[in-house]
């Protein structure tokens, strides 16, 4: 078994060496004084906001995070191993808009947020909740993180994400997670929540992200440290240079996290892509996006870190052929190249701007298919089936064999949405289209979904906490 690798070993080492030179010779701006202090104490050279990282410092610190870790869910059955050969899926993140076939595109609300939590909770293929699955624009930004996290906890018992919108939001999310895990302490004692922190490409981290990074690291809670360099706009147009830049930014963030708390779990996040040169905007449905996912996976393995990349991501504006082609390309590449954490695993449209109810269901099916591929082959005398082949012989058939009935459920993926009827039956059913079927399907799920029970005392404590901080 071997993962797809897009870079040769020599190419990978050249990218790594260039990243080290960027960190040492060009440096990054850190827009937060406490972060500068930590970095200075740790051995970085500081000049104003500019931080220069000696190669040795980077190489030492990058070894400290664990290669894999367990994220604990309210329901232990939903605990997740992040890293190794595992791939987990979380749905779309951060879209301000939402759309469905009937009501069209509009600003997302808390009701949409809750719906996507429920769809994630009900999904067999989404492993955890996305933090800001949509921006609930009807809730004031100051308290959005409280209401989002509460909805995540209330309507599902899968692992969840907290806010990284500055120190206060991060801290309050960590405290809510602590209430849920019942530790009684201010902070949870094992990884139960995690955040996503992004660099401001090129070569900057702003105060808001740095505050959150420092809060999560101090609490020993995991975080994705991510860079999204847009080749040709915020990064060099050449994919190799863009990768070196992405790599430098992610490593700089990881160094800071490790200097704050050695061994704090991090996920190496790389979601760079290219600019659409006609208008200078980000394109994530491009083959360059898939290439970057493969390269990121390789580099993170080189550092022995869990890795995030890929997703059911696209530039298409509505669910349909373009959306699915682009999404499948990026989803399958993530799995085959060994990505561990796939954010935007379902629902996202329009280069991250919009969540679609129908696309959520369509993508979820794709995640199921990719997961079947992930499971691979089990090779043993029973599955090699020599005896059945001998029994049937040339010209026979296998439909009525016990071996067939015993194995087909576990061997074949059972589609939830895809239509495999013959043409005449399909015609007889009124030519159902995938998107229209998905529309019915998501409504069915929402109507029948029963959220797992949240103990009343915990629920009360959480609500009280929210009230106190609102």
């Amino acid at each position, binding site marked *: 078994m071997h993962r*797809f690798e*897009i870079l040769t070993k020599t190419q990978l080492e050249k990218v790594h060496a*260039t990243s080290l030179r*960027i960190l040492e010779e*060009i440096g*990054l701006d850190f827009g937060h004084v406490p972060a500068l202090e930590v970095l200075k104490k740790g051995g970085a050279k500081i000049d104003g906001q*500019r931080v220069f990282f000696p190669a040795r410092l980077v190489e030492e610190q990058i070894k400290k995070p664990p290669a894999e870790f367990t994220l604990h869910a309210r329901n232990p059955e939903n605990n997740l191993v992040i890293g190794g050969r595992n791939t987990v899926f979380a749905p779309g993140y951060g879209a301000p808009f939402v759309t469905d076939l009937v009501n069209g595109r509009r600003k997302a609300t808390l009701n949409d947020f809750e719906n996507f939590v429920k769809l994630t909770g009900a999904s067999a293929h989404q492993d955890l909740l996305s933090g800001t699955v949509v921006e609930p624009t009807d809730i004031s930004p100051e308290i959005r993180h409280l209401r989002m996290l509460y909805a995540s906890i209330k309507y599902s018992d899968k692992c969840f994400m907290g806010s990284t919108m500055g120190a206060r939001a991060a801290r309050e999310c960590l405290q809510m997670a602590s209430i849920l895990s019942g530790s009684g302490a201010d902070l949870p004692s094992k990884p139960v929540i995690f955040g996503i922190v992004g660099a401001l490409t090129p*070569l900057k981290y702003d105060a808001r992200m740095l505050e959150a990074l420092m809060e999560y690291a101090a609490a020993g809670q995991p975080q994705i440290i991510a860079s999204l360099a847009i*080749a*040709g*706009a915020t990064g*060099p147009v050449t994919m*190799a*240079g863009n990768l*070196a830049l992405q790599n430098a930014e992610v490593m700089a963030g990881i160094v800071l996290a490790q200097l704050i708390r050695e061994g704090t779990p991090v996920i190496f996040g790389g979601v760079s892509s*290219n*600019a659409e040169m006609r208008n200078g*905007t980000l394109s994530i*449905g*491009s*083959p*360059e996006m898939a*290439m970057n996912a*493969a390269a990121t996976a390789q580099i993170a393995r080189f550092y022995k870190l869990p890795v995030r990349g890929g997703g059911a991501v696209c530039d298409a504006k509505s669910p*349909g*052929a373009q959306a*699915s*082609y682009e999404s*499948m*390309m990026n989803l*399958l590449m993530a799995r*085959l190249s060994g990505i561990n954490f796939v954010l935007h695993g379902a629902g996202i449209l*329009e280069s991250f*701007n919009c969540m679609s109810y129908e696309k959520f269901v369509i993508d979820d099916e*794709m995640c199921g*298919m*990719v997961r*079947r591929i992930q499971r*691979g*082959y089990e*090779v*043993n005398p029973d*599955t*090699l089936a*020599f005896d059945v082949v001998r029994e*049937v*012989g*040339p*010209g026979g058939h*296998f*439909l009525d064999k016990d071996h*067939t009935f015993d*194995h*087909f459920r576990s061997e*074949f993926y059972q589609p939830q949405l895809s*239509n*495999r*009827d013959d043409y005449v039956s*399909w015609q007889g059913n009124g030519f159902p289209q995938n998107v229209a079927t*998905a529309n019915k399907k998501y409504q069915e799920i929402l109507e029948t979904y029963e959220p797992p029970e949240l103990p009343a005392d915990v629920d009360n404590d959480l609500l009280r906490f929210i009230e106190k901080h609102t």
Partner: protein
Amino acid sequence: MQWYELLTEREVEQIHETSIQILATVGVDFRYAPALKVLKKGGARVDGERVFFPGRLVDEQIAKAPAEFTLYARDSDYDVLIGGEHMAFAPGYGATFVTDMEHGRREGIQRDFKNFVKLTDASPYQDICSGIVIEPSDVPHEIRHAQAIYTAIKYSTKPFMGSAMGVQGARDSIQLASILFGDQNQLSQKPRMISILCSLTPLVFDERMLGAIMEYAGAGQPQLISSLAIAGATSPVTLPGTLAVQNAEVLAGIVLTQLIREGTPVVFAGASSATDMRTGSLSIGSPEMALNTAATAQMARFYGLPVRSGGAICDAKSPDAQAAGESMMNLMMAQVSGINFVLHSAGILDSYNCISYEKFIIDDELCGMVKRIKQGYEVNADKLAMEVIREVGPGGHYLDRDHTFDHFRNEFYQPQLFRRDDFVSWQLNGSPRCMQAAHNRAREILESHESPELPADVDRDMQAFIETLR
């Protein structure tokens, strides 16, 4: 670049051993006396139609086929390398029906056939004209195969495929090619066409296919020796067992070709997949199809042979989101697992039953994207762009750099069809769907396509030859 590999080395050996055991002890039926004679003389044990292959015979003969060969085109710019690290695309093959947005689904006719040859010729990504891109139902059976080759030659200068309709179909194909390219000796020096010959799973080759295999092998023309085992119906439900059956069949066919003419070029072709257990029919949009593609690529590499599998294939009935997801899954898997020859790389729908004009254009874009991924990264000082990164520094941008202008065209895939503008512009343009854009594009290409020059005497001789078949 490291291909994705599904199986461990040991598992590859286990599959091989099982196939050898099938060939030696279960045997394969060859329903054609001349083939039985060749196999017997070559060292196989023959009992009636049943042929048992000693392991040594298989190993010896398989070693004789070349690992890589060239398929020569009328225009040498379009010569295609088959094998090694190369990947060639040929559009859909063998569909009975054709569909487009304007006229809906109907039986394919000669005009459609001609149109698809033109679309193939105009495509920057399709390398070979598919043999029977559709079945032209208005052309009499006795000349259909010859008319197909004539049409491929008349409207395109790319390599083409020969008929699989028995001895006669193969002979006529070779004759027609000879009119253009010279006698059989010249043809065998520079192979001009490739044909696809299939087993009748489980473990049978029929007279029609064997007749053609023997003709083409005798003339030194390359062929795809292909097996399509349907797990649960025509082969074991367990995928390793299906792979072992597929493998045994392909090996048996290749042994025959090498006994007829040592070193005749063959492509190891495996297109097996799963049964949809609800309907009992073939499912090719399933993840099991993609798994089989990856496994087939590995088996062929184990034997040192060029390999065919995958395609832009799906169970969907119309070019919708489902079609897109399934097609991209199977196309991407072909690329990352190292498939050399991708048949059905554009247009096919409805589990091979129908070809769509719009899907042809959409899939062609996919092929372009996948080819971009295959190009991979170029890593050198210029591409690593350290100096540009230094120049821009933290917080700057790259849009106005010479480096950006110098490289973006060759670094980024330029989409022909997919839209990457923002939502508002898209909406102002009337929310265009990629189906409609594809429909328009197909029409534009067909209206503007200029047929290549074909010498008048060749044209006349070919037409005269076809008349002799009536």
